[in-house]
């Protein structure tokens, strides 16, 4: 355990082995241009922002709310962003601003659903049911998604962006405003924990299946 923590620790500072700068200087200036155009009434510019950020918004939401509600909430996020575009002070900060709105929408979703329950910060010892329907619970994809959802929030968000949405680590950092070090540590540690969870499930399910057969 300590060993794996140390690996992650080294990764945090280990960027010095392979220095990676934010790849998105041109993207940031593109964002700023598109935001400025959208603010001036250009809907196609907002559409381009949607294309660039929809996966990130979808992934962040998927890490927080049941999969069946994610698509609707993605639209809510962008509609909310569209309405508040005039309040964005730095056009180039669109990504980080959108992440904050996304988390806010997820937070509101949980508050509306179960008023007394706070949004789970860490679900390390519990599982958030994520299957779309009862029949899907046996599907391997849902099984794996449930395993991801049983990780702590930090790890599950980053892993979902990487493994579900197909974003690379540098992309995740550029879109969400996290540092490369944080993303790399989250990916590495999250993956370690996911492996352990999946191993535990296999060893748990295996004997039961044998018994039933």
């Amino acid at each position, binding site marked *: 355990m300590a060993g794996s923590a140390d690996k992650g*620790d080294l990764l945090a500072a280990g960027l010095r082995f392979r220095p990676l700068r934010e790849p998105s200087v041109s993207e940031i200036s593109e964002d700023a241009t598109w935001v400025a155009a959208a603010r001036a009434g250009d809907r196609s510019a907002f559409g381009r922002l949607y294309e660039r950020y929809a996966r990130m918004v979808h992934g962040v939401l998927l890490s927080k709310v049941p999969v069946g509600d994610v698509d609707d909430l993605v639209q809510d996020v962008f509609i909310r962003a569209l309405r508040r575009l005039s309040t964005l002070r730095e056009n180039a*900060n669109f990504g980080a601003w959108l992440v904050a709105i996304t988390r806010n929408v997820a937070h509101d979703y949980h508050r509306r659903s179960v008023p007394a329950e706070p949004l789970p910060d860490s679900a390390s010892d519990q599982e958030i049911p994520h299957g779309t329907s009862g029949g899907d619970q046996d599907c391997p994809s849902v099984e*794996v998604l449930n395993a991801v959802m049983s990780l702590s929030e*930090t790890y599950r968000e980053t892993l979902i962006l990487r493994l579900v949405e197909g974003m690379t680590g540098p992309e995740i950092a550029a879109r969400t405003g996290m540092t490369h070090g944080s993303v790399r540590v989250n990916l590495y540690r999250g993956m370690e924990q996911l492996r352990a969870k999946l191993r535990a499930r296999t060893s748990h399910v295996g004997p039961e299946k044998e018994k039933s057969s």
Partner: protein
Amino acid sequence: MRDAGSHRTEHETSIENDNYLWDRSGDPEPEIPQLETLLGKFRHDSPIPVFPEIVPERRWVVFHWHLRLFPALGMAAAGMAAIVAVTFLVYRTKPTPTNLTGWNVSYLQGTLRIGQKTIGAKEAATRVGIGQMLETDNQSRASLQADDIGKIDVDPSTRLRLLTMGTGLKRIALDRGTIHTYIWAPPGQFVVDTPSAVTVDLGCAYTLQVDDSGAGMVRTSLGWVGFKLNGHESFIPAGAACATRPKVGPGTPYFEDASTEFRSALARFDFEDTTSQQRAHDVAIVLSEARQRDALTLWHLLARVDDQQRVLVYVRLSHFVPPPVTATKEGILRLDQPMLDMWWNELGFDDISVWRHWEHSWTGTATPVREK
């Protein structure tokens, strides 16, 4: 004691093997493409929705254009502006108990007090204005929201006051209790005064607690937070925490998964009035228990220990993260700020220039820092 050299080689190998997970370069471990295939089923694939019409923002340049073409219209507009300005100044001199500028109470569970008024959950949405105090009892919760700043969730038994809502600075005071903030205002604009420190948002989400003695604790979950009081500054990145005490100010930030010995020694060092011998002992424990990510703590310690201990901290921190070539040992030991900042940037957290850029002369309502 671990063999750092052999671990390092193992770690370097791990990093190389993990490049596929990071940026899809190199050979993947077989399970990762398999996971990508299984989980890819949930990937976003909806087409671009039809967004509503965007109302273009008003541009003052149009107004100027009119002014050039129609001088009379310009004169009239200037006259109207003068009347508005005078009216504003007249009204401004009158003290008002509430102000239209403020935070909306977007959610309420139980009842809360705003000033002298008790607000129930069934009442219409209300506002907290500048100069007003908001207080939750031991069973109520509330959320405050301001479109261009962010959101504050207020836990039970909390009292806060809204101090300012300027265009460049939004400031509240947390007298006691717990708030969870999600801020989307630009870094450096949202400030919370506590009895023992001033927290400065640097683009983040964080939880801030203040107990009845005025002692505080900040835990950052996204981005990073600056904690400052009278020259003592602490930077708390996501996953880290930092305590503050009245008359002492912010302690040294740390990651909460550090060993118990590490955290206990650090707490004694920061806040207990111990002998110099005990302090040296506590620093030694912190150094020996430190892991790679505790470079965060060691960097902060550089400016908080005496000259003799600073050399030890320098050596240990260099072991984890070598200082940049542009920083000299002599410079670091005499606490040259630009060199310390350059070393911070090597630690893998956020760029300290963000803080330096937004830094103002924060002077909290808290009491002065005790000299160590």
